[in-house]
């Protein structure tokens, strides 16, 4: 399996009034055409890892890495223009809340068509046909109707599907999904995930799934990176998660209340300083 993405010693730091805050401290992994989960709690650096790969780190932060290679292209050396060309066309990102990622004054269909045009993958009738096909692929029942709607006219689940359609229509090789379903209701969440799962499998994409929800990620991904305080504390195959060695991963699994299992009080995480070391 050839590596689609290689990350070695990735670091992201933010200068603040009270000194430099290191959000990501030396993260390394390789990704093939597979589903990789990155799990951690708030402040673990999981989102910043995803953003750094796409070059979406805020401008005042500094990003460094020994290696950051996507399909033979060194992301550390490419110009801003080349990076923009990669973004959307070959690497795409789905964010948590579609309300903030869709343009509120543009019809959903037009936005998707624009994405196609921007990456030179068809215009006019051809683009329209592909857009409608894509909306159908994310299981939107009346693609013609949704095509003409504005983002505020659709529900959260529908908006997230439209977002996924927009991101996948250019047929990227790598999709980074940052908490793509956290803002959705549980029942809708599963529908969106199964759409995502099907598309990734059919199109042979690589997927990085960033989430706080260890159980969800482990049921969806092939491999899981567990992050704590900016570092990867454990890497484990998703189906072997229950055999995890690191106390943090175990703690995260245990502290959730489970249906049909009563445990009072719930076990809490005893954070050890050496985890962050």
């Amino acid at each position, binding site marked *: 399996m050839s590596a689609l993405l290689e990350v070695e010693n990735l670091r992201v730091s933010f200068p603040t009034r009270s000194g430099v805050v290191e959000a990501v401290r030396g993260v390394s992994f390789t990704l093939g055409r597979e589903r990789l989960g990155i799990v951690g*709690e*708030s402040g673990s650096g999981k989102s910043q890892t995803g953003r750094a790969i796409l070059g979406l780190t805020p401008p005042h932060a500094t990003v460094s890495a020994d290696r950051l290679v996507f399909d033979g292209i060194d992301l550390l050396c490419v110009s801003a223009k080349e990076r923009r060309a990669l973004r959307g066309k070959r690497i795409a990102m789905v964010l948590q809340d579609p309300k903030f990622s869709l343009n509120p004054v543009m019809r959903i269909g037009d936005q998707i068509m624009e994405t196609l045009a921007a990456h030179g993958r068809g215009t006019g009738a051809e683009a329209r046909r592909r857009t409608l096909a894509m909306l159908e692929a994310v299981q939107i029942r009346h693609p013609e109707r949704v095509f003409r709607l504005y983002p505020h006219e659709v529900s*959260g689940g529908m908006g997230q599907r439209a977002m996924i359609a927009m991101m996948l229509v250019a047929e990227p090789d790598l999709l980074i999904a940052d908490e793509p379903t956290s803002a959705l*209701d*549980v*029942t*809708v*969440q*599963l529908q969106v*995930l*199964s759409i995502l*799962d099907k598309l990734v499998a059919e199109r042979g994409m690589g997927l990085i799934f960033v989430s*706080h*929800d*260890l*159980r*969800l990620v*482990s*049921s*969806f991904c092939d491999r899981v990176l567990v992050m704590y305080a900016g570092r990867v504390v454990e890497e484990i195959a998703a189906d072997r998660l229950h055999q995890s060695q690191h106390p943090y991963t175990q*703690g*995260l699994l245990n*502290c*959730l*209340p*489970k*249906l*049909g*299992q*009563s*445990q*009072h*009080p*719930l*076990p*809490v*995480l005893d954070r050890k300083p050496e985890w962050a070391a």
Partner: protein
Amino acid sequence: MTDALTISDLVVEFDDFRAVDGVSLSVREGESFGLVGESGSGKSTVLRAVAGLAPITAGTIAVGGETLGRTRSKDFYRRVQMVFQDPYGSLHPRHTIDRALAEPLAVHGIGDAEQRIVKALEEVGLGTGFRFRYPHQLSGGQRQRVAIARALILEPKVLLLDEPTSALDASVQAEVLNLLEEVRRKRGLTYILVSHDLAVVTHMCERLLVMQHGKPVELLTSADLAARRIETPYTRELMVASEGFKRGA
């Protein structure tokens, strides 16, 4: 046993929108009762109607046998308090923790504020080191502890909990849930807990009501749920969804 809270045929309307449509339930004194549903199910609105933050269009709400009117007495707020979902939005950004805890005492003219504040902070496991900090100096879990302390400082009998842990990390959620269970046991409180998370509700409550689109769907005990004695398809759907993703499903 008397009922701490009785709701009968509650309807809440905002303009033309019916947020709650015919909900009835009764919660016994000392019981912990859960309201479960997805967004738009009206579960939080029920809680807000009890607290007086949402209008009662029809039906009645009674606390401790006394039917609530349009306005609530000061005495009501000493019996019923609430903890909100978003710990970042429920504390005044310009007030220190000390001031947040002193305010309810000042409103009700309660003396020995000094002692009560120290005691309340200790009860929620914060200690006095946090007393003069501002909310932005606290983590989400710490803020939620302050919110719980603020609700408890008036020594209420009923605590309304509106998704108290859904904005928190899983490990912090466990700490806050443990804290809530502990104070309930110690003080013999009655809880009404609203959550979208079936596992959290069954963990915390003895009985629960599943809601959808403002209407009650199913009333069942946590034991029933754990044993999967479920009658309605919607509850079953929620149950399956909360177990995580299944490929090929």
